[in-house]
Protein backbone atom coordinates (compact mmCIF):
# COMPACT_ATOMS: atom_id res chain seq x y z
CA UNK A 1 0.00 0.00 0.00
CA UNK A 2 2.83 2.33 0.92
CA UNK A 3 4.44 1.62 -2.46
CA UNK A 4 1.22 2.57 -4.19
CA UNK A 5 1.08 5.89 -2.39
CA UNK A 6 4.73 6.54 -3.25
CA UNK A 7 4.05 5.93 -6.93
CA UNK A 8 1.15 8.36 -6.84
CA UNK A 9 3.34 10.93 -5.13
CA UNK A 10 6.11 10.34 -7.67
CA UNK A 11 3.61 10.93 -10.47
CA UNK A 12 2.94 14.32 -8.99
CA UNK A 13 -0.76 13.48 -8.82
CA UNK A 14 -2.60 15.10 -5.94
CA UNK A 15 -3.98 12.58 -3.44
CA UNK A 16 -7.63 12.45 -4.42
CA UNK A 17 -9.55 13.13 -1.19
CA UNK A 18 -12.91 14.16 -2.62
CA UNK A 19 -13.85 10.80 -4.19
CA UNK A 20 -12.75 9.02 -1.01
CA UNK A 21 -14.88 11.30 1.14
CA UNK A 22 -17.96 11.03 -1.06
CA UNK A 23 -17.34 7.27 -1.42
CA UNK A 24 -17.29 6.82 2.36
CA UNK A 25 -20.50 8.80 2.70
CA UNK A 26 -22.22 6.71 0.00
CA UNK A 27 -21.07 3.49 1.62
CA UNK A 28 -22.47 4.68 4.94
CA UNK A 29 -25.79 5.34 3.23
CA UNK A 30 -25.78 1.78 1.86
CA UNK A 31 -24.68 0.27 5.17
CA UNK A 32 -27.15 2.29 7.25
CA UNK A 33 -30.12 -0.13 7.10
CA UNK A 34 -27.89 -3.07 8.01
CA UNK A 35 -26.34 -1.27 10.94
CA UNK A 36 -29.90 -0.51 12.00
CA UNK A 37 -30.80 -4.18 11.63
CA UNK A 38 -27.86 -5.24 13.80
CA UNK A 39 -28.93 -2.77 16.49
CA UNK A 40 -32.65 -3.58 16.31
CA UNK A 41 -32.29 -7.38 16.42
CA UNK A 42 -33.15 -8.86 19.83
CA UNK A 43 -30.01 -10.98 20.10
CA UNK A 44 -31.01 -12.22 23.59
CA UNK A 45 -34.27 -13.52 22.28
CA UNK A 46 -33.23 -14.71 18.80
CA UNK A 47 -35.83 -17.20 17.60
CA UNK A 48 -37.73 -18.12 14.47
CA UNK A 49 -41.45 -17.78 13.88
CA UNK A 50 -43.40 -20.94 12.97
CA UNK A 51 -42.85 -21.85 9.32
CA UNK A 52 -39.61 -19.87 8.96
CA UNK A 53 -37.40 -22.92 8.47
CA UNK A 54 -39.78 -24.27 5.81
CA UNK A 55 -39.53 -21.00 3.88
CA UNK A 56 -35.74 -21.26 3.85
CA UNK A 57 -35.94 -24.68 2.19
CA UNK A 58 -38.53 -23.41 -0.32
CA UNK A 59 -36.44 -20.38 -1.26
CA UNK A 60 -33.16 -22.23 -1.60
CA UNK A 61 -34.47 -25.31 -3.43
CA UNK A 62 -36.71 -23.59 -5.92
CA UNK A 63 -34.26 -20.74 -6.58
CA UNK A 64 -31.67 -23.31 -7.55
CA UNK A 65 -34.09 -24.98 -9.96
CA UNK A 66 -35.03 -21.57 -11.41
CA UNK A 67 -31.34 -20.69 -11.75
CA UNK A 68 -30.59 -23.87 -13.69
CA UNK A 69 -33.54 -23.18 -16.03
CA UNK A 70 -32.37 -19.59 -16.50
CA UNK A 71 -28.84 -20.70 -17.43
CA UNK A 72 -30.01 -23.48 -19.75
CA UNK A 73 -32.56 -21.36 -21.61
CA UNK A 74 -30.97 -17.93 -21.23
CA UNK A 75 -27.43 -18.74 -22.42
CA UNK A 76 -28.37 -19.71 -26.00
CA UNK A 77 -30.57 -16.62 -26.29
CA UNK A 78 -27.76 -14.40 -25.00
CA UNK A 79 -25.28 -15.96 -27.45
CA UNK A 80 -27.72 -15.58 -30.31
CA UNK A 81 -28.26 -11.90 -29.55
CA UNK A 82 -24.53 -11.30 -29.12
CA UNK A 83 -23.33 -13.08 -32.25
CA UNK A 84 -26.00 -12.93 -34.93
CA UNK A 85 -27.20 -9.86 -36.73
CA UNK A 86 -30.47 -9.99 -38.61
CA UNK A 87 -33.40 -7.80 -39.57
CA UNK A 88 -35.79 -7.11 -36.73
CA UNK A 89 -33.26 -7.85 -34.00
CA UNK A 90 -34.33 -4.61 -32.32
CA UNK A 91 -37.77 -6.17 -31.72
CA UNK A 92 -36.19 -9.03 -29.73
CA UNK A 93 -34.15 -6.54 -27.75
CA UNK A 94 -37.33 -4.56 -27.07
CA UNK A 95 -39.03 -7.69 -25.66
CA UNK A 96 -36.19 -8.18 -23.17
CA UNK A 97 -36.26 -4.50 -22.27
CA UNK A 98 -40.02 -4.83 -21.71
CA UNK A 99 -39.48 -7.74 -19.33
CA UNK A 100 -36.91 -5.68 -17.42
CA UNK A 101 -39.18 -2.64 -17.26
CA UNK A 102 -42.40 -4.29 -16.12
CA UNK A 103 -43.00 -3.73 -12.37
CA UNK A 104 -42.87 -7.11 -10.56
CA UNK A 105 -46.45 -6.80 -9.33
CA UNK A 106 -47.68 -6.15 -12.88
CA UNK A 107 -45.61 -9.05 -14.18
CA UNK A 108 -47.27 -11.26 -11.55
CA UNK A 109 -50.68 -10.21 -12.80
CA UNK A 110 -49.70 -10.81 -16.45
CA UNK A 111 -48.36 -14.26 -15.58
CA UNK A 112 -51.51 -15.11 -13.67
CA UNK A 113 -53.53 -14.08 -16.71
CA UNK A 114 -51.46 -16.43 -18.85
CA UNK A 115 -50.77 -19.32 -16.46
CA UNK A 116 -53.75 -18.98 -14.08
CA UNK A 117 -56.47 -21.67 -14.04
CA UNK A 118 -58.53 -19.69 -16.60
CA UNK A 119 -55.54 -18.53 -18.66
CA UNK A 120 -54.78 -20.10 -22.07
CA UNK A 121 -51.65 -21.92 -20.92
CA UNK A 122 -52.85 -22.54 -17.36
CA UNK A 123 -56.05 -24.29 -18.43
CA UNK A 124 -54.11 -26.36 -20.95
CA UNK A 125 -51.56 -27.74 -18.47
CA UNK A 126 -54.31 -28.15 -15.86
CA UNK A 127 -55.56 -31.03 -18.01
CA UNK A 128 -52.21 -32.70 -17.42
CA UNK A 129 -52.68 -32.21 -13.68
CA UNK A 130 -50.15 -29.39 -13.32
CA UNK A 131 -51.21 -26.22 -11.55
CA UNK A 132 -49.30 -23.08 -12.39
CA UNK A 133 -50.57 -20.94 -9.51
CA UNK A 134 -49.82 -21.42 -5.82
CA UNK A 135 -47.69 -24.49 -6.49
CA UNK A 136 -44.03 -25.40 -6.64
CA UNK A 137 -43.92 -25.01 -10.46
CA UNK A 138 -45.62 -21.62 -10.09
CA UNK A 139 -42.99 -20.53 -7.56
CA UNK A 140 -40.15 -21.54 -9.91
CA UNK A 141 -41.97 -19.86 -12.82
CA UNK A 142 -42.25 -16.60 -10.89
CA UNK A 143 -38.54 -16.58 -10.02
CA UNK A 144 -37.64 -17.55 -13.60
CA UNK A 145 -39.52 -14.55 -14.99
CA UNK A 146 -38.11 -12.24 -12.34
CA UNK A 147 -34.46 -13.07 -12.95
CA UNK A 148 -34.16 -14.26 -16.58
CA UNK A 149 -33.95 -10.82 -18.29
CA UNK A 150 -31.10 -9.74 -15.99
CA UNK A 151 -29.15 -12.89 -16.78
CA UNK A 152 -29.70 -12.53 -20.55
CA UNK A 153 -28.49 -8.92 -20.54
CA UNK A 154 -25.35 -9.79 -18.52
CA UNK A 155 -24.56 -12.96 -20.51
CA UNK A 156 -25.03 -11.17 -23.81
CA UNK A 157 -22.52 -8.49 -22.79
CA UNK A 158 -20.14 -11.27 -21.70
CA UNK A 159 -20.33 -13.00 -25.10
CA UNK A 160 -19.96 -9.70 -26.94
CA UNK A 161 -16.70 -9.18 -25.04
CA UNK A 162 -15.17 -12.33 -26.58
CA UNK A 163 -13.07 -11.31 -29.62
CA UNK A 164 -14.62 -12.87 -32.71
CA UNK A 165 -11.15 -13.36 -34.12
CA UNK A 166 -10.42 -15.97 -31.45
CA UNK A 167 -13.55 -17.90 -32.39
CA UNK A 168 -12.54 -17.69 -36.05
CA UNK A 169 -9.04 -18.94 -35.25
CA UNK A 170 -10.54 -21.91 -33.41
CA UNK A 171 -12.46 -22.77 -36.59
CA UNK A 172 -9.31 -22.55 -38.73
CA UNK A 173 -7.68 -24.92 -36.23
CA UNK A 174 -10.23 -27.55 -37.17
CA UNK A 175 -12.77 -27.14 -34.37
CA UNK A 176 -16.49 -27.24 -35.12
CA UNK A 177 -18.65 -24.23 -34.17
CA UNK A 178 -19.97 -26.25 -31.18
CA UNK A 179 -16.45 -27.11 -29.96
CA UNK A 180 -15.43 -23.48 -30.51
CA UNK A 181 -18.29 -22.37 -28.27
CA UNK A 182 -17.22 -24.69 -25.43
CA UNK A 183 -13.46 -24.26 -25.78
CA UNK A 184 -13.21 -20.55 -26.55
CA UNK A 185 -16.43 -18.53 -26.15
CA UNK A 186 -17.49 -20.00 -22.79
CA UNK A 187 -14.12 -19.81 -21.00
CA UNK A 188 -13.49 -16.28 -22.24
CA UNK A 189 -16.98 -15.12 -21.26
CA UNK A 190 -16.83 -16.78 -17.86
CA UNK A 191 -16.25 -13.60 -15.82
CA UNK A 192 -19.33 -11.96 -17.27
CA UNK A 193 -21.33 -15.19 -17.13
CA UNK A 194 -20.45 -15.63 -13.46
CA UNK A 195 -21.61 -12.08 -12.79
CA UNK A 196 -24.83 -12.84 -14.67
CA UNK A 197 -25.43 -16.02 -12.65
CA UNK A 198 -24.79 -14.19 -9.38
CA UNK A 199 -27.19 -11.43 -10.42
CA UNK A 200 -29.87 -13.94 -11.46
CA UNK A 201 -29.49 -15.79 -8.15
CA UNK A 202 -29.94 -12.62 -6.13
CA UNK A 203 -32.94 -11.57 -8.21
CA UNK A 204 -34.60 -14.99 -8.02
CA UNK A 205 -34.06 -15.41 -4.30
CA UNK A 206 -35.31 -11.91 -3.48
CA UNK A 207 -38.28 -11.98 -5.88
CA UNK A 208 -41.38 -10.75 -4.08
CA UNK A 209 -43.83 -8.99 -6.39
CA UNK A 210 -44.32 -11.75 -8.95
CA UNK A 211 -44.27 -14.49 -6.31
CA UNK A 212 -46.86 -12.66 -4.22
CA UNK A 213 -49.40 -12.78 -7.07
CA UNK A 214 -48.55 -16.05 -8.80
CA UNK A 215 -47.37 -18.24 -5.91
CA UNK A 216 -48.35 -16.99 -2.46
CA UNK A 217 -47.88 -20.63 -1.51
CA UNK A 218 -45.44 -22.29 -1.05
CA UNK A 219 -43.94 -19.43 0.95
CA UNK A 220 -40.32 -18.53 0.33
CA UNK A 221 -38.34 -16.16 2.53
CA UNK A 222 -39.48 -12.83 0.95
CA UNK A 223 -43.20 -13.67 1.26
CA UNK A 224 -42.66 -15.15 4.73
CA UNK A 225 -41.03 -11.88 5.81
CA UNK A 226 -44.16 -10.08 4.69
CA UNK A 227 -46.41 -12.60 6.48
CA UNK A 228 -44.35 -12.35 9.70
CA UNK A 229 -44.60 -8.55 9.59
CA UNK A 230 -48.38 -8.69 9.13
CA UNK A 231 -49.12 -11.46 11.64
CA UNK A 232 -46.53 -10.98 14.40
CA UNK A 233 -44.67 -7.71 13.94
CA UNK A 234 -41.21 -6.35 13.32
CA UNK A 235 -39.22 -8.55 15.75
CA UNK A 236 -40.34 -11.64 13.79
CA UNK A 237 -38.81 -10.21 10.60
CA UNK A 238 -35.22 -9.78 11.78
CA UNK A 239 -34.17 -13.40 12.49
CA UNK A 240 -35.46 -14.61 9.12
CA UNK A 241 -33.72 -11.70 7.41
CA UNK A 242 -30.40 -12.72 8.97
CA UNK A 243 -30.89 -16.23 7.61
CA UNK A 244 -31.75 -14.82 4.22
CA UNK A 245 -28.38 -13.08 4.06
CA UNK A 246 -26.67 -16.22 5.24
CA UNK A 247 -28.13 -18.37 2.44
CA UNK A 248 -28.07 -15.76 -0.33
CA UNK A 249 -24.50 -14.54 -0.05
CA UNK A 250 -22.35 -17.70 -0.53
CA UNK A 251 -23.09 -18.32 -4.24
CA UNK A 252 -22.28 -14.79 -5.51
CA UNK A 253 -19.28 -14.70 -3.20
CA UNK A 254 -17.89 -18.01 -4.46
CA UNK A 255 -18.53 -17.05 -8.10
CA UNK A 256 -16.81 -13.71 -7.57
CA UNK A 257 -13.80 -15.20 -5.84
CA UNK A 258 -13.45 -18.08 -8.32
CA UNK A 259 -13.50 -15.82 -11.36
CA UNK A 260 -11.13 -13.28 -9.82
CA UNK A 261 -8.61 -15.90 -8.79
CA UNK A 262 -8.30 -16.91 -12.45
CA UNK A 263 -8.12 -13.41 -13.85
CA UNK A 264 -5.18 -13.84 -16.16
CA UNK A 265 -5.84 -11.37 -18.89
Amino acid at each position, binding site marked *: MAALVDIQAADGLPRARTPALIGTFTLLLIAGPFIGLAVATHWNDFHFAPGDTGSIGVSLGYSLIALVLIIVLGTPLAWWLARQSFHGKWALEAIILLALLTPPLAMGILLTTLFGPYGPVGSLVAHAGVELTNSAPAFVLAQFYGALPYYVVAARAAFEGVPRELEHIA*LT*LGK*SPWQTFWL*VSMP*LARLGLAAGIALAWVRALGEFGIVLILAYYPQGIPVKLWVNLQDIGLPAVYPLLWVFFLVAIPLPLILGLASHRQRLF
Partner: protein
Amino acid sequence: MRINYRIDHPLQLQADFEVEDFTVLLGQSGEGKTTLLRAIAGLLPAQGEPFSGLPPQHRAIGYLPQGYALFPHLRAWENVAFALPRGPQRRAQALELLARVRLVHVADHYPTALSGGQQQRVALARALARKPQLLLLDEPTSALDAGTRDEVMAELIFDMHEFGLPTLAVSHDPYLAALADRVAAMSGRRIVQQGTPAEVLSRPASVAVARLLGHRNLFTARVVGHESSTGVTLLQWEAANGTTLRVPQQPELAAGQLVQWMIAPTAVRLPSFKPERHRSDNPVTGRVETRLNLGAHCQVALRCGTERLWLAAPSNLVRHHGLEPGREITVDLRSNGLLCWPHLG
Protein backbone atom coordinates in the same frame (compact mmCIF):
# COMPACT_ATOMS: atom_id res chain seq x y z
CA MET B 1 0.24 -23.82 -55.26
CA ARG B 2 -2.02 -21.61 -57.32
CA ILE B 3 -4.40 -19.26 -55.53
CA ASN B 4 -7.36 -18.05 -57.54
CA TYR B 5 -10.06 -16.24 -55.57
CA ARG B 6 -12.88 -13.90 -56.38
CA ILE B 7 -14.63 -11.94 -53.61
CA ASP B 8 -17.77 -9.82 -54.05
CA HIS B 9 -18.46 -8.82 -50.47
CA PRO B 10 -17.47 -6.84 -48.33
CA LEU B 11 -15.33 -5.60 -51.23
CA GLN B 12 -14.78 -6.69 -54.82
CA LEU B 13 -11.47 -8.38 -55.37
CA GLN B 14 -9.88 -10.75 -57.85
CA ALA B 15 -6.58 -12.48 -57.15
CA ASP B 16 -4.86 -15.13 -59.22
CA PHE B 17 -1.23 -15.93 -58.43
CA GLU B 18 1.30 -18.60 -57.51
CA VAL B 19 2.44 -19.34 -53.98
CA GLU B 20 5.72 -21.17 -53.58
CA ASP B 21 7.99 -21.35 -50.52
CA PHE B 22 7.76 -17.95 -48.83
CA THR B 23 5.59 -15.73 -51.01
CA VAL B 24 4.81 -12.12 -50.16
CA LEU B 25 1.72 -10.38 -51.51
CA LEU B 26 2.41 -6.65 -51.42
CA GLY B 27 -0.39 -4.12 -51.42
CA GLN B 28 -1.35 -0.80 -49.90
CA SER B 29 -3.75 -0.66 -46.96
CA GLY B 30 -7.31 -0.95 -48.23
CA GLU B 31 -6.43 -3.27 -51.10
CA GLY B 32 -8.27 -6.09 -49.33
CA LYS B 33 -5.25 -8.23 -48.40
CA THR B 34 -6.70 -9.31 -45.04
CA THR B 35 -10.05 -9.93 -46.73
CA LEU B 36 -8.29 -12.23 -49.22
CA LEU B 37 -6.59 -14.22 -46.43
CA ARG B 38 -9.86 -14.55 -44.55
CA ALA B 39 -11.54 -15.75 -47.73
CA ILE B 40 -8.85 -18.40 -48.29
CA ALA B 41 -9.31 -19.46 -44.65
CA GLY B 42 -13.05 -19.80 -45.30
CA LEU B 43 -14.03 -17.08 -42.85
CA LEU B 44 -16.02 -15.08 -45.39
CA PRO B 45 -17.92 -16.05 -48.53
CA ALA B 46 -15.88 -16.23 -51.75
CA GLN B 47 -15.40 -18.38 -54.83
CA GLY B 48 -12.06 -19.87 -55.69
CA GLU B 49 -9.44 -22.56 -55.50
CA PRO B 50 -8.06 -24.20 -53.43
CA PHE B 51 -10.53 -25.28 -50.71
CA SER B 52 -13.57 -24.05 -52.65
CA GLY B 53 -16.79 -24.22 -50.66
CA LEU B 54 -15.35 -25.97 -47.59
CA PRO B 55 -16.18 -24.64 -44.12
CA PRO B 56 -13.13 -23.19 -42.30
CA GLN B 57 -12.70 -26.19 -39.98
CA HIS B 58 -12.19 -28.47 -43.00
CA ARG B 59 -9.57 -26.34 -44.76
CA ALA B 60 -5.99 -27.44 -44.23
CA ILE B 61 -4.62 -23.95 -43.65
CA GLY B 62 -2.72 -22.28 -40.84
CA TYR B 63 -3.83 -18.70 -40.35
CA LEU B 64 -1.78 -16.19 -38.35
CA PRO B 65 -3.75 -12.94 -38.15
CA GLN B 66 -2.20 -9.61 -37.17
CA GLY B 67 -1.51 -9.77 -33.45
CA TYR B 68 -1.51 -13.60 -33.71
CA ALA B 69 -4.76 -14.15 -31.74
CA LEU B 70 -3.38 -16.56 -29.16
CA PHE B 71 -6.02 -17.80 -26.72
CA PRO B 72 -5.44 -15.68 -23.61
CA HIS B 73 -6.92 -18.29 -21.26
CA LEU B 74 -4.51 -21.03 -22.35
CA ARG B 75 -0.81 -21.48 -21.65
CA ALA B 76 1.63 -21.52 -24.59
CA TRP B 77 1.64 -25.33 -24.80
CA GLU B 78 -2.17 -25.48 -24.48
CA ASN B 79 -2.46 -23.01 -27.34
CA VAL B 80 -0.28 -25.29 -29.46
CA ALA B 81 -2.21 -28.37 -28.31
CA PHE B 82 -5.53 -26.75 -29.23
CA ALA B 83 -5.73 -28.47 -32.61
CA LEU B 84 -4.28 -31.78 -31.38
CA PRO B 85 -6.59 -34.71 -30.61
CA ARG B 86 -7.19 -35.46 -26.92
CA GLY B 87 -4.99 -38.18 -25.50
CA PRO B 88 -1.99 -38.92 -23.31
CA GLN B 89 0.44 -37.78 -26.03
CA ARG B 90 -1.10 -34.33 -26.35
CA ARG B 91 1.34 -32.39 -24.14
CA ALA B 92 4.36 -34.24 -25.52
CA GLN B 93 3.33 -33.44 -29.10
CA ALA B 94 2.74 -29.78 -28.23
CA LEU B 95 6.15 -29.53 -26.56
CA GLU B 96 7.74 -31.12 -29.63
CA LEU B 97 6.18 -28.43 -31.82
CA LEU B 98 7.28 -25.73 -29.39
CA ALA B 99 10.79 -27.19 -29.57
CA ARG B 100 10.74 -26.76 -33.34
CA VAL B 101 10.25 -23.02 -32.84
CA ARG B 102 12.76 -23.02 -29.91
CA LEU B 103 10.20 -22.09 -27.25
CA VAL B 104 9.98 -25.08 -24.89
CA HIS B 105 11.20 -22.88 -22.05
CA VAL B 106 8.03 -20.75 -22.17
CA ALA B 107 5.60 -23.69 -22.54
CA ASP B 108 3.83 -22.89 -19.25
CA HIS B 109 3.63 -19.13 -19.79
CA TYR B 110 0.40 -17.38 -20.68
CA PRO B 111 0.47 -15.33 -23.93
CA THR B 112 0.57 -11.99 -22.10
CA ALA B 113 3.96 -12.99 -20.65
CA LEU B 114 5.48 -13.56 -24.13
CA SER B 115 7.22 -11.05 -26.41
CA GLY B 116 5.77 -10.23 -29.83
CA GLY B 117 8.24 -12.52 -31.59
CA GLN B 118 7.57 -15.37 -29.16
CA GLN B 119 3.81 -14.98 -29.58
CA GLN B 120 4.29 -15.16 -33.33
CA ARG B 121 6.23 -18.42 -33.05
CA VAL B 122 3.71 -19.94 -30.64
CA ALA B 123 0.99 -19.04 -33.16
CA LEU B 124 3.13 -20.67 -35.86
CA ALA B 125 3.52 -23.85 -33.78
CA ARG B 126 -0.23 -23.85 -33.11
CA ALA B 127 -0.93 -23.55 -36.83
CA LEU B 128 1.56 -26.34 -37.62
CA ALA B 129 -0.21 -28.68 -35.18
CA ARG B 130 -3.12 -28.68 -37.58
CA LYS B 131 -0.83 -30.07 -40.35
CA PRO B 132 -1.72 -27.35 -42.89
CA GLN B 133 -1.00 -27.41 -46.62
CA LEU B 134 -0.72 -23.62 -46.73
CA LEU B 135 0.23 -21.00 -44.17
CA LEU B 136 -1.35 -17.55 -44.25
CA LEU B 137 0.39 -14.65 -42.48
CA ASP B 138 -1.26 -11.26 -42.11
CA GLU B 139 1.29 -8.41 -41.85
CA PRO B 140 3.85 -10.54 -40.00
CA THR B 141 6.13 -7.56 -39.34
CA SER B 142 3.48 -5.17 -38.04
CA ALA B 143 3.62 -6.15 -34.35
CA LEU B 144 7.43 -6.31 -34.21
CA ASP B 145 9.61 -3.40 -33.24
CA ALA B 146 12.34 -2.31 -35.61
CA GLY B 147 15.11 -3.63 -33.37
CA THR B 148 13.95 -7.26 -33.36
CA ARG B 149 12.17 -7.34 -36.71
CA ASP B 150 15.12 -8.60 -38.76
CA GLU B 151 15.94 -11.32 -36.24
CA VAL B 152 12.34 -12.49 -35.83
CA MET B 153 11.61 -12.53 -39.55
CA ALA B 154 14.86 -14.34 -40.33
CA GLU B 155 13.89 -17.04 -37.80
CA LEU B 156 10.34 -17.24 -39.11
CA ILE B 157 11.46 -17.62 -42.71
CA PHE B 158 14.07 -20.17 -41.68
CA ASP B 159 11.29 -22.14 -39.96
CA MET B 160 9.04 -21.95 -43.03
CA HIS B 161 11.79 -23.38 -45.21
CA GLU B 162 12.57 -26.02 -42.60
CA PHE B 163 8.94 -27.18 -42.52
CA GLY B 164 8.70 -27.02 -46.32
CA LEU B 165 5.31 -25.35 -46.17
CA PRO B 166 4.09 -22.98 -48.87
CA THR B 167 3.47 -19.68 -47.09
CA LEU B 168 1.57 -16.62 -48.19
CA ALA B 169 2.33 -13.43 -46.26
CA VAL B 170 0.42 -10.26 -47.08
CA SER B 171 2.07 -6.98 -46.24
CA HIS B 172 2.51 -3.36 -47.22
CA ASP B 173 6.11 -3.53 -46.05
CA PRO B 174 8.60 -3.55 -48.97
CA TYR B 175 11.24 -4.83 -46.53
CA LEU B 176 9.41 -8.16 -46.36
CA ALA B 177 9.34 -8.45 -50.17
CA ALA B 178 13.13 -8.41 -50.24
CA LEU B 179 13.19 -11.51 -47.98
CA ALA B 180 10.68 -13.48 -50.03
CA ASP B 181 11.20 -16.34 -52.48
CA ARG B 182 8.42 -14.92 -54.60
CA VAL B 183 6.56 -11.61 -54.73
CA ALA B 184 3.12 -10.69 -56.04
CA ALA B 185 2.00 -7.07 -56.17
CA MET B 186 -1.60 -6.04 -55.77
CA SER B 187 -3.02 -2.77 -57.04
CA GLY B 188 -6.59 -1.83 -57.84
CA ARG B 189 -7.69 -5.03 -56.07
CA ARG B 190 -6.05 -7.35 -58.55
CA ILE B 191 -2.60 -8.87 -59.05
CA VAL B 192 -0.56 -6.59 -61.33
CA GLN B 193 2.83 -8.31 -61.18
CA GLN B 194 4.46 -11.44 -59.80
CA GLY B 195 7.90 -13.01 -59.90
CA THR B 196 11.11 -13.31 -57.90
CA PRO B 197 11.97 -10.33 -55.69
CA ALA B 198 14.96 -9.53 -57.94
CA GLU B 199 12.77 -9.42 -61.06
CA VAL B 200 9.99 -7.41 -59.48
CA LEU B 201 12.27 -5.03 -57.58
CA SER B 202 14.39 -4.21 -60.60
CA ARG B 203 11.54 -4.06 -63.13
CA PRO B 204 8.32 -2.86 -61.48
CA ALA B 205 5.49 -3.15 -64.01
CA SER B 206 3.94 0.18 -63.09
CA VAL B 207 4.41 3.27 -60.98
CA ALA B 208 2.00 1.77 -58.44
CA VAL B 209 4.21 -1.31 -58.05
CA ALA B 210 7.33 0.86 -57.85
CA ARG B 211 5.71 2.80 -55.00
CA LEU B 212 4.70 -0.45 -53.26
CA LEU B 213 8.29 -1.61 -53.44
CA GLY B 214 9.40 1.56 -51.72
CA HIS B 215 11.23 3.11 -54.67
CA ARG B 216 11.95 6.75 -53.93
CA ASN B 217 13.30 8.09 -57.23
CA LEU B 218 9.96 8.50 -59.02
CA PHE B 219 9.67 11.55 -61.30
CA THR B 220 7.68 13.01 -64.17
CA ALA B 221 9.11 13.93 -67.62
CA ARG B 222 7.89 14.70 -71.15
CA VAL B 223 8.67 12.66 -74.28
CA VAL B 224 10.71 14.67 -76.78
CA GLY B 225 11.02 12.05 -79.50
CA HIS B 226 12.74 8.85 -80.62
CA GLU B 227 16.23 8.31 -82.06
CA SER B 228 15.78 5.13 -84.03
CA SER B 229 19.42 5.05 -85.13
CA THR B 230 20.70 4.72 -81.56
CA GLY B 231 17.58 2.96 -80.20
CA VAL B 232 16.71 5.52 -77.57
CA THR B 233 13.72 7.58 -76.56
CA LEU B 234 14.49 11.12 -75.43
CA LEU B 235 12.79 12.60 -72.38
CA GLN B 236 12.92 16.09 -71.00
CA TRP B 237 13.06 16.28 -67.19
CA GLU B 238 11.50 19.69 -66.85
CA ALA B 239 11.62 19.85 -63.05
CA ALA B 240 15.41 19.47 -63.11
CA ASN B 241 16.21 22.47 -65.30
CA GLY B 242 15.04 20.67 -68.47
CA THR B 243 17.71 17.97 -68.35
CA THR B 244 17.51 15.55 -71.30
CA LEU B 245 17.32 11.83 -70.49
CA ARG B 246 17.95 8.93 -72.87
CA VAL B 247 16.09 5.70 -72.16
CA PRO B 248 15.97 2.46 -74.18
CA GLN B 249 13.52 3.03 -77.03
CA GLN B 250 9.81 2.69 -76.18
CA PRO B 251 8.03 3.26 -79.51
CA GLU B 252 4.58 3.29 -77.88
CA LEU B 253 5.34 6.66 -76.29
CA ALA B 254 4.29 9.66 -78.38
CA ALA B 255 6.20 12.94 -78.53
CA GLY B 256 4.80 15.48 -76.11
CA GLN B 257 3.33 12.79 -73.85
CA LEU B 258 3.91 12.96 -70.09
CA VAL B 259 5.63 9.92 -68.56
CA GLN B 260 6.58 8.79 -65.08
CA TRP B 261 10.05 7.40 -64.71
CA MET B 262 12.21 5.93 -62.01
CA ILE B 263 15.75 4.91 -61.34
CA ALA B 264 17.06 2.75 -58.51
CA PRO B 265 19.44 4.74 -56.23
CA THR B 266 22.15 2.16 -57.04
CA ALA B 267 21.85 2.93 -60.77
CA VAL B 268 22.75 6.58 -60.14
CA ARG B 269 26.51 6.50 -60.77
CA LEU B 270 29.14 8.80 -59.35
CA PRO B 271 31.92 9.78 -61.76
CA SER B 272 34.35 6.85 -62.08
CA PHE B 273 37.90 6.95 -60.77
CA LYS B 274 38.95 6.61 -64.41
CA PRO B 275 36.56 8.87 -66.30
CA GLU B 276 38.00 7.99 -69.73
CA ARG B 277 36.72 4.40 -69.38
CA HIS B 278 33.01 5.36 -69.36
CA ARG B 279 30.84 7.47 -71.53
CA SER B 280 28.05 9.15 -69.62
CA ASP B 281 24.49 8.14 -70.60
CA ASN B 282 22.60 10.88 -68.81
CA PRO B 283 24.70 13.42 -66.96
CA VAL B 284 22.65 15.18 -64.28
CA THR B 285 24.00 17.93 -62.06
CA GLY B 286 22.76 18.46 -58.53
CA ARG B 287 23.73 19.84 -55.14
CA VAL B 288 24.21 17.52 -52.15
CA GLU B 289 21.40 18.04 -49.64
CA THR B 290 21.70 15.17 -47.17
CA ARG B 291 24.08 12.27 -46.61
CA LEU B 292 23.02 9.14 -44.71
CA ASN B 293 25.92 6.98 -43.55
CA LEU B 294 24.87 3.32 -43.44
CA GLY B 295 28.23 1.72 -42.71
CA ALA B 296 29.85 0.49 -45.89
CA HIS B 297 27.27 2.32 -47.97
CA CYS B 298 26.00 5.86 -48.10
CA GLN B 299 22.76 7.30 -49.39
CA VAL B 300 23.00 10.81 -50.73
CA ALA B 301 20.14 13.14 -51.63
CA LEU B 302 20.90 15.50 -54.53
CA ARG B 303 18.78 18.57 -55.20
CA CYS B 304 18.16 18.74 -58.96
CA GLY B 305 15.93 21.72 -59.79
CA THR B 306 12.81 21.19 -57.71
CA GLU B 307 13.30 17.42 -57.34
CA ARG B 308 15.35 15.32 -54.95
CA LEU B 309 17.38 12.47 -56.49
CA TRP B 310 18.73 9.73 -54.22
CA LEU B 311 21.89 7.82 -54.96
CA ALA B 312 23.42 4.88 -53.13
CA ALA B 313 27.16 4.25 -53.36
CA PRO B 314 30.06 2.70 -51.42
CA SER B 315 31.17 5.01 -48.60
CA ASN B 316 34.79 5.22 -49.84
CA LEU B 317 33.58 6.48 -53.24
CA VAL B 318 31.35 9.04 -51.56
CA ARG B 319 34.28 10.22 -49.44
CA HIS B 320 36.56 10.30 -52.50
CA HIS B 321 34.17 12.73 -54.18
CA GLY B 322 33.84 14.78 -50.99
CA LEU B 323 30.05 14.68 -51.06
CA GLU B 324 29.32 17.05 -48.22
CA PRO B 325 26.07 19.04 -48.10
CA GLY B 326 26.26 21.99 -50.46
CA ARG B 327 28.75 20.34 -52.83
CA GLU B 328 27.74 20.29 -56.51
CA ILE B 329 28.33 17.12 -58.55
CA THR B 330 27.40 15.64 -61.90
CA VAL B 331 26.20 12.06 -61.74
CA ASP B 332 25.22 9.65 -64.48
CA LEU B 333 21.81 7.99 -64.72
CA ARG B 334 22.48 4.69 -66.50
CA SER B 335 20.06 4.33 -69.45
CA ASN B 336 19.38 0.68 -68.78
CA GLY B 337 18.47 1.49 -65.18
CA LEU B 338 15.81 4.00 -66.25
CA LEU B 339 12.24 2.75 -66.36
CA CYS B 340 9.32 4.76 -67.64
CA TRP B 341 5.58 4.39 -67.98
CA PRO B 342 2.88 6.58 -69.52
CA HIS B 343 1.61 9.09 -66.94
CA LEU B 344 -1.78 8.07 -65.59
CA GLY B 345 -3.89 11.00 -64.43
